[in-house]
């Protein structure tokens, strides 16, 4: 059996953990630069505050209803996620952390000692709330896709009280018939539109779709989903996470950037971030993209993109910075207020099995990079950095409504009245 344990509006819930005053108030959390809404808690949802809409559009509505607005406090979320995952992991012999707020559990030997999965789900839910003050929902079923469906219903339908179990044909039909096909794990927007044309509306309709046709009409992935919805396990995960095939670092600026130096600095900052990620997973980049754009809401939106191919694949920050310096002119445009910029590493190869080139040997200084990473790991990010990254960033991320780093900074630990 599998369980999917998923926090309810995780970012917004994190904000209430050390500020009990917010536990009964509508709370929303904004994305980087306070641009869009990325999380709304239950009370904010009840006020019909739309997720993913730009903040400036609903600012008045928020003020009218005294909605508490917060900037993304990633330092806090990362720490609370880690603690939450540790608590959840205690309840099964295998855990797979799927995202910052979702974790699969696989009950292998545990399955023999659990006689009531519904009660067990409730135990998990209570323990997570008691120890971390984060509310989670639990879905339990025989395959990961069904567990995800059960979790969806546990979240959506109040009567389930946060725990849904699919353990027989009745419960399977009951859950899947209440679920839209577009909400099934692995069904994207395009596929869902296509399925609706074929008169497939609910998850149950999809589970009754002929397996052979699913593969022919759609893809092998959809076929797998159909099988999983029928209780046949097809999704497996490796014990070790496979390295990423692409790495991006992109962010919008706190304020518009008009000069080339600032744009160059921000791209250099992104290079340092992706290069560190490359080294961390022991990959080298062959093909790097670089982009900069103004806002899509501007009258004349500008979107510029450029590429660089490394003949000798690299993960050395200085080699990548030199490439950026060479091609920055192709993305910079005078008199444009840049709003966003980023670096993408598209073609990655394994450091260990790289094909060397006889005529262009690698010039990576891996000893220096290891030293750099070790120092920054020990003393904090950017303790040692390249001058190209700049010293003071006027374009840095805007986080106007940031809550304290309650668990990661001494000066920020919560006050307790005595």
């Amino acid at each position, binding site marked *: 059996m599998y369980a999917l344990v998923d926090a309810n509006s995780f970012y917004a819930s994190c904000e209430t953990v050390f*500020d009990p005053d917010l536990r009964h108030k509508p709370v929303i959390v904004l994305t980087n630069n306070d641009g869009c809404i990325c999380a709304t808690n239950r009370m904010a949802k009840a006020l019909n505050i739309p997720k993913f809409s730009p903040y400036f559009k609903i600012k008045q509505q928020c003020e009218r209803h005294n909605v508490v607005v917060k900037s993304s406090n990633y330092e806090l979320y990362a720490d609370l996620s880690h603690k939450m995952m540790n608590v959840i992991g205690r309840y099964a012999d295998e855990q797979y952390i799927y995202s910052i707020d979702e974790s699969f559990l696989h009950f292998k030997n545990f399955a023999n000692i659990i006689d009531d999965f519904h009660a067990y789900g409730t135990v998990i839910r209570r323990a997570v709330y008691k120890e971390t003050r984060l509310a989670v929902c639990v879905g339990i079923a025989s395959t990961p896709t069904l567990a995800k469906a059960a979790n969806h219903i546990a979240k959506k339908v109040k009567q389930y009280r946060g725990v849904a179990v699919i353990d027989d044909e009745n419960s399977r039909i009951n859950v899947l018939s209440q679920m839209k096909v577009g909400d099934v794990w692995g069904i994207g927007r395009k596929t869902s539109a296509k399925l609706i044309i074929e008169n497939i509306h609910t998850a149950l309709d999809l589970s009754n779709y002929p397996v052979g046709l699913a593969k022919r009409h759609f893809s092998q992935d959809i076929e797998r989903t159909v099988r999983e919805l029928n209780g046949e396990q097809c999704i497996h995960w490796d014990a070790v996470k496979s390295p990423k095939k692409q790495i991006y670092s992109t962010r919008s600026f706190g304020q518009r950037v008009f000069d080339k130096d600032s744009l160059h600095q921000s791209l250099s900052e992104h290079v340092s971030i992706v290069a560190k990620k490359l080294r961390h997973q022991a990959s080298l980049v062959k093909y790097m993209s670089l982009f900069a754009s103004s806002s899509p809401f501007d009258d004349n939106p500008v979107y510029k993109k450029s590429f660089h191919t490394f003949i000798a694949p690299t993960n050395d920050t200085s080699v990548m910075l030199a490439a950026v310096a060479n091609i920055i002119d192709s993305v910079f445009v005078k008199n444009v207020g840049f709003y966003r910029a980023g670096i993408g590493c598209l073609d990655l190869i394994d450091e260990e099995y790289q094909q060397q080139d006889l005529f262009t040997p690698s010039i990576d200084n891996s000893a220096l990079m290891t030293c750099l990473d070790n120092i920054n790991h020990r003393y904090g990010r950017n303790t040692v950095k390249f001058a190209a990254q700049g010293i003071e960033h006027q374009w840095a991320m805007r986080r106007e409504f940031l809550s304290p780093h309650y668990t990661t900074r001494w000066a920020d630990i919560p006050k*307790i009245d005595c």
Partner: protein
Amino acid sequence: MIFSLVRIEAGISGFESPAAEYKELKLNIDELLVEHPNATFLGISNGDSMNDVGIFNGDVLVVDRSMHPRHMDVVVATFNGNFSCKLFDEINQCLLSASDDYPPINIDKSDSFIIEGVVTSSIRCHRPSRFINVCAS
């Protein structure tokens, strides 16, 4: 006669410590103070109502959410939207201050989450810490 200079290097290896076999892991202060790391948080005390149990303004409180509060435990409660440090009187179902200047607070049974956690220890820095600034309140 030709002399050639040859540098001779000899590796110095020294003697193995006679205590090497007895080496154990160092003591870790977390081990002593934090029994349930995932359920524990730190807070800083603000006020003097708990002086009589030895908690003073600016002390660091170690709060364990997983523990079940017992009679006369020092606990942290959520009260008026704030965290408050109190003594838990299980028999009379109320929260007490360790000072006569503050009246007891009755626990409403319907609100079961009023107790946030048990204060398992408190830490005093007898020399000011460079990490924590305490403003006299």
